[in-house]
């Protein structure tokens, strides 16, 4: 658990120190990537609290969700429905995040 928190902080530190600007081609995928990442994060956290956490599942779920989300956005761009599809992705992942956070809350506060 501590290791996980430290790993996250390390990633944040690198993001703060490494002054990299996002290439414009990747700009539309950034929000999707963030939401997919958050979804994997909270999913993993809930699994940990549910005592069913598995590293392999965590990694695979993160990569799969990110790739699928990016593919959907890319396809949407090509078909001209980019905004709508990315909205759909955000909505679905958002629902999952909410649900996982609620479960985590139940664990933490027994409420």
């Amino acid at each position: 658990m501590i290791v996980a928190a430290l790993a996250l902080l390390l990633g944040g530190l690198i993001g703060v120190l490494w002054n990299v600007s996002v290439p414009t081609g990747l700009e539309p995928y950034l929000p999707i990537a963030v939401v997919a990442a958050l979804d994997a994060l909270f999913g993993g956290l809930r699994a940990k609290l549910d005592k069913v956490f598995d590293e392999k599942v965590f990694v695979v779920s993160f990569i799969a969700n990110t790739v699928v989300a990016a593919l959907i956005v890319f396809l949407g761009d090509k078909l001209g429905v980019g905004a709508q599809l990315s909205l759909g992705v955000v909505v679905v992942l958002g629902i999952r995040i909410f649900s996982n956070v609620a479960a985590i809350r139940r664990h933490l506060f027994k409420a």
Partner: protein
Amino acid sequence: MSSQMPKEPVMELLLRHIDHGYGAINTAPPATRRVARAVAIGVLVVIGFVVTIAFRDTLQDAPRTERTKQALIDQIGQKRSGLEALEERSQQVESRMVDERTAADRAARDQRRADNHGKDVSAVVGAAEVYGPGVIVTVADGPHSGEQSRGSSASTVTDRDLHELVNALWQAGAEAIEIDGQRLTTTSAIRTAGEAILVDFQAVSSPYEIRAIGEIGSMRQAFYDSAVAQRFQSYVDTYGMRFEVQAAARLDLPASSIARPRKAHPAPTEGR
């Protein structure tokens, strides 16, 4: 958590908020587990990195989006003031149009007034045919011997008589007068030439019919009261001359051709 594969992956994503697989019993060997652990930590680092990058990116974009918004606001302001200027100009043009229309109406009215004035003047001066109620004054020479030349007999109507009769009629309110078909104008002359009386170069003879257009009642009365009318009334008995005044409901007087003035120039007048 059940480990069965749901039939629709999309619905799985939506309904089972925790990833399938977390519930399965892990049977991998420890070595794989250590690798998986390391990768998991790497993924966590990546997640931290991505989230921070996205946050920074949005932060950087903020001034740009703010500037774009401000530029748009400025543009809206400019267009709006441009629109206001155009509206103002449109109002100015409209009010000028109203002014011009009023001026045009006024000019038309002035033109009409001038035209009517011109017509009135023509009628009064004698340059136009006129009709109206009036009186007919008939005077004629009394009986006299044919050899006597004109002017020597007291019973002859002279040009002076006609002058006085016409003057009396003007005085009584006549507006148009003719003698034996000769319309009197502002330049008309009544004079004797040899045996005849000429009105504007046209000879007239006894009986002299003087037609005058005017208000019958007042004109006739005023004419009767005039000195010349009284005098002629007495001539009827004394010299046997003829003197009759009769009213007419409608008299038609012809126009006279008035020559264009050669020496009299109209003085400049301000607009009436």
